[in-house]
């Protein structure tokens, strides 16, 4: 039985990954994050929620943060603290570059981030955008 409000001893309390903000590369970041979350043995739905919300933040950066053809990085930081998991996705561009071929099927990414997390904040500055998502871990394992 895990201590109240936690999953037990953190395996690796923090994960930091810096990657090129490109579609194929952020898939690799998603895989690393999924492995990290699974190692913490959270409730099954939470693994999916964190991986999906974080991926939507990553892919937004890959598709919108930098002008087409311009190199830029995205940083993912995942923290497991007592009673919560916090994911931060940071880029150093601006979300004002529409994709070369606008895709009408997009647009649910930010909604998913808000719906799937307990708390989500998006901070845009002149030097980049940071999406912070938090999940609270309940003592009863839900």
């Amino acid at each position, binding site marked *: 039985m895990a201590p109240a409000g936690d999953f037990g001893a953190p395996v690796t309390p923090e994960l930091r990954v810096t990657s090129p903000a490109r579609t194929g590369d952020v898939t690799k970041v998603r*895989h690393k994050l*999924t492995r990290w979350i699974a190692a913490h043995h959270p409730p099954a739905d939470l693994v999916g929620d964190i991986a*999906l919300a974080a991926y939507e933040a990553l892919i937004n950066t890959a*598709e919108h943060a930098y002008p087409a053809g311009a190199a830029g990085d995205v940083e993912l930081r995942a923290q497991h603290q007592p009673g919560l998991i916090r994911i931060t996705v940071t880029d150093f561009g601006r979300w004002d570059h529409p994709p070369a071929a606008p895709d009408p099927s997009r647009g649910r990414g930010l909604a998913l981030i808000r719906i799937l997390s307990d708390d989500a904040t998006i901070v845009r500055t002149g030097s980049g955008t940071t999406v912070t998502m938090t999940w609270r871990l309940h003592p009863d394992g839900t």
Partner: protein
Amino acid sequence: MPATDPNPGQDPRSFAGETTISLRRAGSAVVLTAQGEFDAVSTPGLRTSIREAVEDGPEVLVIDLTAVEFFGSGAIATLVDAHLRAAEQTSLRLAVEHYLDRTLKLVGLDQQLATYPSVEEALAAG
């Protein structure tokens, strides 16, 4: 790439990023089965396959998503696209496992999309 896998006991399929899309006939219905991870890399192939299946105009099209391991917002949007294209011509039914069913409910798409817990139940539905 990291030299060590922090969780070597995990089923490697879950992280391979491989996808499989297959089609089969079941009477007057067509079943399109999509397996694996559908993120921004793999979703365009899924969108094309679903569009082609809808354009063939079967009476019933069941999209079997019971073995998907990741389904991003772009993949969810392909289902809405398929629903709009199927219109009156084709009865579009989704077979989804618990997690995807929950996600579709959370984004409010359970009102538009007909979901069933298995292909068999989707085929049997009126």
